[in-house]
Every structure is written in C-alpha cells, then in structure tokens.
C-alpha cells in the first residue's frame, strides 16, 4: 500500500493526502488506527431468540469471557450497539422486527449469524411453515457460525474473524472517492 511510484508522488500536489488508489501516509495510517480501535470495542446487542442465546450468555460469562476481545458490553438498545448476534431462528413474524433493529444500529454495523437456524433455517429447514430459511434473507450477514448450538469456542472464533474483517476496512478512502 501507500505510494506506488515516484511519478505519481510528484504528480500529486499533496502527496501526504490520499487522492488515488492505494492510499498515502496519513489516511492509511488513520484507517489502521480507527480500525484497531473499532475492532477492539464491538458492542453486541442483547438479542437472543433460541437456544444459541444461552451459549451466547455462556460466552459472556467467566469461563469463556468474551470481554477478552472487547465484546463485553452487551447493550439492550440497538442505538448503542455495533453488532447483532442472531442467536436462533427468525420466523416471518420476527423478520420485520429484526430488520428494524438492524436499521436502528448506527453505522458501521456488523452481523453474526450464530447457529444453524440463523445460517440456513437449520433443523426447521424442512416442513416448517414459519421459519425464514436463513437470516441473510432479511439482513446482510458478515460471519456465519454453524452448529446447533455452536460451542462457545466457535463463537469466540467468529469474534476473531469479525475483528480481522474490521481491520481490513478502508473508511476514509471511501469518503474521498465520493
């Protein structure tokens, strides 16, 4: 990343500011700083529908302790949260509510689909008349965690994957492009 050639560097009046693909010093470094801060304080929404919510609680408790990765502050209102962990099945009556909760979260926002129900409908895939076959029919999902329910370690791994994803983001460049 950074400046790709000397020619480009001379062409740019303010080489230190980011005006072309690849980025320059200040903004790439600022991106790294912001992403570092963001990825280490992701606050989940207390949203649990089915059995996976119990494993989510177990992850929050002392043995597994998601606070180690900066996820500890589970918020009860979407306005203070950064992410939703969809822990359990979503049915047709719940889907609009989930959409609304997602819309109320301020950007940037992330979604983890925890468990088979949220990934694909899981045990309710066949013959059920009311379950949405995967929460990604309703809101975009970043990380999928399979399992019925997933082990706490699997959810912790998903947290780490989400951190990796956040660290790759380019916030400032996008804004300049617009």
């Amino acid at each position, binding site marked *: 990343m950074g400046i790709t050639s000397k020619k480009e560097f001379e062409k740019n009046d303010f080489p230190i500011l980011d005006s072309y693909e690849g980025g320059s010093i200040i903004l790439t470094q600022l991106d790294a700083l912001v992403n570092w801060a963001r990825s280490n304080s992701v606050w989940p929404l207390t949203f649990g529908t089915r*059995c996976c919510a119990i494993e989510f609680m*177990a992850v929050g408790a002392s*043995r597994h302790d998601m606070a180690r990765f900066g996820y500890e502050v589970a918020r009860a209102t979407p306005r203070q949260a950064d992410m939703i962990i969809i822990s359990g099945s979503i049915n047709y*009556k*719940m889907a609009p509510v989930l959409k609304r909760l997602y819309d109320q979260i301020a950007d940037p926002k992330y979604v983890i689909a925890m468990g088979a129900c949220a990934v694909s409908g899981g045990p309710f895939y066949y013959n059920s008349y009311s379950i949405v076959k995967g929460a990604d029919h309703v809101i975009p999902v970043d990380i999928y965690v399979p399992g019925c329910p997933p082990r706490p370690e699997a959810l912790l791994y998903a947290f780490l994957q989400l951190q990796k994803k956040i660290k790759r983001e380019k916030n400032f460049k996008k804004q300049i492009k617009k």
Partner: protein
Amino acid sequence: MAEFSEKYIVTDEIKADEYLVNIGPQHPSTHGVLRLLTRLEGEIVHNVEPHIGYIHSGIEKMTEALSYPQIVHLTDRMDYLSAHMNNEAVCLCVENALQVEVPERVKYIRTIFDELQRLASHQLWWCASGMDLGALTAFFYGLRDREDILDIFEETCGARLTLNYSVPGGVMFDIHPNFQKSVKAFITKFRKKLPEYDKLLTDNIIFQNRTKGVGVLSKEDAIAFGVTGPTGRASGFSCDVRKHHPYSAYPYIKFDEKMGTDGDSFMRWKVRMDEMWESMNIIEQLIDNIPEGDFAVKMKGVIKLPEGEFYQRVESARGEFGVYIVSDGKKNPYRVKFRSPGFSNLFTINHIAKGWKIADLVAIMATFDLVIPDIDR
C-alpha cells in the same frame, strides 16, 4: 417496599390518561422474543397482554412428517433448558405405547440426567432473574457453576445444551467411566456454592423488598390457570409429576415436594432455591446405585406405534410437560401435541401484575422462569 394500588384495578377500555407501552419483542427482561403490550397510567400497570408468535416454528406440524426417533431431536429445541426432560417425555410415551420395559440402568441414568438438567436450568434461572432485578453479579456466579454440569453432559453425550441423549428404548450411549466421579465432585462443590447464592440475593434486604408480597397468585387461581411446576407449588398447589405420577427411577427414591404458601414472587424464588437442594439429594441417592446392564433395549429399525392416543407427562424444570401422540399405526404420528408448562404460566401474568408498578412486572416475570420457545413452539 413495593406498593400495590388497589384502586387502579380497572376495566377494559383505554382511558384518556392511560398509554400503551410495548415491552419486547427485543427486551432483556422478556428472556427471548416475547412481546408484552402493557397499558399504563404513570408507572402503574393496568393491563398486560402477552403477544406470542415471534419464535413460532411449527414443531407440532413438523413432527407429522418425522419418525418417532426423529421427533426426539426436535423436542430439544423447544424448552432448551430442560432438554433432557423433553427427550425423555417423548421416549417414555413411545415406550409406553409399545409396552417396552427399559432396563433399570436406563431409568437411573435418565433420572440423574433429569436432576442435573433441573439444576442447570435453575442455575440459569437464578442468574437471569438476578440480572433482571439489577444484580449482575448473579449472572457470573450462576453461569460459573453451570459450566461444571455442562462438562458432565459433554463428557457423556458430547453436547452441552441440546443433549439428544434419550432415544426410544434407552439412552444413546453408556455413561462415561468418569461420570459417577465427576457428578459426585460437582455435588460436593455445589453444596458449598449454593449458600453463596442465598447470601447474595435471598437474604438481601433490597431483593426481599422487591419480591415479597409482589404478584400474589392464589392457590385457586393457580389451579384454574393450570399453573404447574415451582410456580404452582409456590402457591400451595401440589402438582409435582415426579410425586403424583412417578416415572423412570422416581418411585425408588425418597424426596420432598417443595411447597410454598404465599404465592408471591419471593415464594416462587424460594421454592426453586429449595428444589436445587432437593435435586442434589435425589442425585446422591441414585449415583452410587446405578445397576449394571444394558443402556438400551433393541428396538425395531422402523418404530410403528399401534393405533390410538398416548399421553405421557414429566416434570420439566418449569412444570408439567406433556406429550400427546395420536397414532394411526404408521411410522409417523397422525398428530402430536406438546403441553408446555410455560404457556399456562405466562398467561396468569395479566391477572397478577395488574395494579403493580412496571418494575414489579419485571420482578414477576423473573420469578416465572419463562423460556419463550417452550411457550410458543
């Protein structure tokens, strides 16, 4: 001290100074996706209307396309905190219909698992309701001790939460060689930990003021609403299925049915705390006497029930859980109905929360120990 305002018990029409508040579907105190439409005047609850259906998954309809061993796996996903009791209910129902006698060893194993599951469920109830009432420490204490039970489950059947351990005719695997040792170690440990729970909340004056006398459910009402389990027993309604219709190894053991008298939130709390002690007594009576033998009887590859109707009830952590199977002689049931304890318990809430403050409504909800997928299958 919580106050009850009698003069506000009112009629059905909405008055000018009343307003409606939706608690849920996403709200921490509803323990899932329950929606309570409350009508308030100031802080005082005039009417509570529970709306369910946010987690409805049509399990009863799904079972009509499944074979009997497959149904067992779906019952885990209803009341996931008493997963093993639900499994057992279906298995017992199928066994009774086929008149299969399971080995003694299976009965003992199932009963020990029942009680371990009840302990795990009550621990989670304790920490979740402590959290509802504003004591976050309870959350960490409860889940810390619960992990020990989950380890025992995991050792034997490989799952932490949805056990799928019972199958028609027995259990899926034999118990782990370490099972007895680890259960005993857990009980010795938990006997020391449980007084801590009492110290933290039951003897706490703030907690007592919030729960004593709040949300009284009389014995007559409990019977009329079909309230069972610790909630019903707190009102003085003797409804323990383990006592009145014993199944598995419960006829062989001595235990008390823990009863309350007042029917208020504190008594519901107390009954559950006492049940934890009683569960440990039951396990201690059984754990050393597990008879040798097979862990399952051989069943046919395709289980077909004779034509007719079959009902089996068990005591889950929340109350009487019933399975009603109508069979037309095929490998799939014609109709399955589950009688879930949470459903009957929940719908008393309008009756007992009227006239209390909205914070008391949370206290009442906390001591009901609701699991929403159990209410709304």
